[in-house]
């Protein structure tokens, strides 16, 4: 896997995202898969910067990825204390539809083939099959 350690800020994250998306496109993944990966990666990185590292620019993000002809695997880790994704309420539940937050994990689950929290809950592993 290719490993990237980057500062916990949006500019650095965008460059890393483009690097990963470039690898996806170079492998000939369909545009639907690229769309799904871009969206999920954005959600994972936003969560890591905002909730994991709590906006602290002195903290780091750790990205690992591999892209082959079968699947793309991307891991995003932060320096936070981790969390239990089961504790995140369903954003489509009655009364929650008009809440502005809390849809990132739902979108990752909808668009990825696998979404798994590992470590102490401070790393998310995303898998998208090529076909």
């Amino acid at each position: 896997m290719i490993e990237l350690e980057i500062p916990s800020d949006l500019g650095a994250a965008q460059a890393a995202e483009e690097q990963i998306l470039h690898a996806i496109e170079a492998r000939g993944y369909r545009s639907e898969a690229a769309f799904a990966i871009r969206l999920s990666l954005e959600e994972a990185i936003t969560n890591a910067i905002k909730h994991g590292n709590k906006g602290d620019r002195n903290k780091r993000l750790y990205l690992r990825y591999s892209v082959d002809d079968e699947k793309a695997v991307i891991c995003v880790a932060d320096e936070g204390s981790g969390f239990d994704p089961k504790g995140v309420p369903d954003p489509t539940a009655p009364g929650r539809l008009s809440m502005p937050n809390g849809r990132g994990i739902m979108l990752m689950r909808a668009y990825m083939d696998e979404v798994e929290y590992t470590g102490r809950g401070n790393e998310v592993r995303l898998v998208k099959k090529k076909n």
Partner: protein
Amino acid sequence: MPEAKSNLRITDEGNAKMVEFVDRKILDELTITQIGERLSELVASEPNPRLLLNFKNVEHLSSAALGMLITLDRQVKEKQGRLKLSNIRPQILEVFKITRLNRLFEIYESAEEAIQSY
């Protein structure tokens, strides 16, 4: 002083103000915060804001952008205005459907249709 690069194009369509997103991607928090602030100013400047957001250029949208739209919708409703969305590509419409926000927002296929419906 040159104006800062704007990521919104705003036109008066008679029945409503139409806002076109210039960017293909509405993903990162910084861009979304800027867009949200500009749209909030627009809502604040109108007595009964009638706002149409035209998504024809938008190819990528994140959950943070959805959050911004929800907040904007609330601001518009507080002023007895109406917020409508149009020209959403199928791939983006899917994001609204997954999150069931297609039930919260008034979504039209074309800008013309949306403007006529005010």
